[in-house]
């Protein structure tokens, strides 16, 4: 079996943890996020006949991206950047986190997720604002942690990209 470590990055309250919960029912509680700064879950996928164990490091999101522990990023084969469509500042934080990730673990695949797709009427984030990230991401997708729309597809896309790389 192939195992891959991925990180879930994003500003505070962009819905990272909710996205993971749509995918797995983990054994660790959310309080790890505020104590150790990370909560880890595992998800087994099958990508084109290949079994893949994805170990998801859900990093505590703080608007001050410097509080993110870079050591947690070490060894990641990919990451997921999450932006809250209703909060513009989450784009900036995502950009900084992206830079931190690229700097720490190098050019690994990542996907950009715009969460709260179900609240699209309230969106203040415009697509051009994420154009820089869009160019580099292997997938940009609008997802809803509330309905679960697009979540699994996003993880699958990242898995495929990691297996290719």
């Amino acid at each position, binding site marked *: *079996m192939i195992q891959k470590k991925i990180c879930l990055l994003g500003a505070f309250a962009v819905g990272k943890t909710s996205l993971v919960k749509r995918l797995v029912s983990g*054994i660790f509680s959310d309080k*790890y996020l505020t104590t*150790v700064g*990370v909560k880890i*879950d595992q998800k087994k996928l099958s990508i084109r006949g290949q079994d893949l164990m994805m170990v998801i*490091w859900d990093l505590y999101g703080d608007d001050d991206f410097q509080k993110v522990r870079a*050591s947690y990023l*070490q060894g*990641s084969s990919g990451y997921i950047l999450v932006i809250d469509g209703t909060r513009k500042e989450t784009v900036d934080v995502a950009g900084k986190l992206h830079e931190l990730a690229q700097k720490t673990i190098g050019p690994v695949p990542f996907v950009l997720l715009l969460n709260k797709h179900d609240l699209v009427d309230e969106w203040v984030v415009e697509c051009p604002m994420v154009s820089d990230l869009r160019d580099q991401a292997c997938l940009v997708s609008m997802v809803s942690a509330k309905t679960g729309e697009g979540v699994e597809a996003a993880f699958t896309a990242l898995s495929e990209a990691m297996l290719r790389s």
Partner: protein
Amino acid sequence: MERTRRSSPVSPPLEYAKEGTEDFSVLRRLLLAPEQVQLDRLRQRLDTFVVGPEEVSNVLPDAIRLRAQQDNRLLASMVPITQEALALSIKQSPQLISDSIAPILGSAIRKALSRAMREMLQSLNQTLEYSMSWQGLQWRWEAWKTGRPFVEVVLLHTLRFRVEQLFLIHKKTGLLLNHVMAEGISSQGEAAISGMLTAIQDFVRDSFQQSQDEGLESLRIGDLTVWIEQGSSAILATVIRGTPPVKLRDVLQNTLDSLHAQYSDSLKNFQGDTAVFLETRPFLEDCLQAQFVKKQKGLPVAFLVLCALLLALLGWWAYHASLHHQQWTEFLKRIGAEPGIVVTSIQEEEGRRVLHGWRDPLAVDPERLLEEVGYSSNAVGFHLEPFIALTPEMVHKRAIQVLQPPESVEVSIEGNRIVLMGESSHRWISRVDQSAMAIPGVSEISMERLIDTDVKQFETLRNALEQQAIFFLEGQGRLPDRELVKTQQVKHILQELDKEAVKLGRELSIDVMGYSSPVGSQSINLLLSEMRAKKVLDILSEPPYQVLKLAAMGKGVDPDGTSVAGEEKGYARSRRVSFKVVEAKTIHPPREAGVRKGP
């Protein structure tokens, strides 16, 4: 011009062909006929081109290798074909597959079975060891109270330490390379736990600004300890219940070191594929160690003394019980062999053993047998009915008692016959016959070898008397003095003979016979012989005898003496008185030796 012709040998003819002029065609055939043939052949070959097996076989190995280096698509394509081929192969020739995998499968199964058996035995031993003890009962109560299985409670109380889980973790990524668990341990989310252990290490390291080489060595909560061994590329997290010994740490570190040495390249180039690390399982399983609290070996002195006393008491009791048993067995053996006693049953009555049966009054006293074997007579009672035993021993005993033989007589029993041997008085012999026949079990008596001492004496005296002779002088009826002394000897014999005759119950007549020599006339000789006989009779008649009767008779000339006529000496022997014993009658017929049969 030359160059033009050579550089366009293919396209111009096609164009010219469209012209359709005959001359041009003729010219073209003349100029380009050989090339045209070659071109046609090439075209035909291209149209019908098929790659042959030979060409493919030459390039296939390199092609597969090159493609595998690019990506996994070839591998993914081959998976279903390989699976189907394998399935078909198993279906068609299962023996071939079986033979191929038997060496590795057999070893793996043996190892797994051995491990399972060891763990089962260990668990069973513990459960058995503690299930019947006082402590075991306490633990059963605890198990019942807490609702936990008894085995688990025993394990918790007896466990010194037990390695429950091992996580071999890639240091850089925190990904789980391999994981083993002890029997009965359940776990979930090993990959996430592995990541979390790495994250916690990072957290601690970052929080306290330790270098990358440093790491958490130990976590402890309750009776659970997590030891983390650090390697250059991997860490070994060991979950231990209880208090592990320090030397276990060496075992874990050595295991991690050897794994590093063996999987150095795989660890450095790890990209998430954990397949290669499946082979680390035996190494990790060797670390699944456990140690249990040994039962206290030393025992309290008081307990030992008590045990010694109990043992001594037990030994004393066992000795006496054994002795008692031996004595009783000996007693039963002897009473069983004893003639005249028949034991029909032995019953326990009021704490005593009572023997029921029969006993001949002449048989040995059973109480004496008890004394002889040393068995307490208080513990045994007898309820033996009297009876007469007809065994040879008892008949003999009874014969001795009834006959009361003198010491010179030996009594033996042969079947229903009493055999008497030796010497005895006439009186004893005369009544033994009647007495013997009254003994139960006796129907014959044999006295062939029994000598009557009185008869023997009687015969001796008779012979002695009949050899006596009182001699007279020629022509005289008067007894010479020297012969008078001899008559006293004869009188003594007669007195003894008289006594023996009384004993034998016989009346005797003694003929006192007078003889004379042939010298002289017959009438005188007859007279002379009568005188001589009377003379001796007169001397011998006093004192009177009890049963003897003497009778004097003149026999005249000695018939034996005439044969020696002419010799004075022979005449002298003829002038005599001789004696002859005549048994007139038997008052009590004397017992003749021989066999008598009873009624």
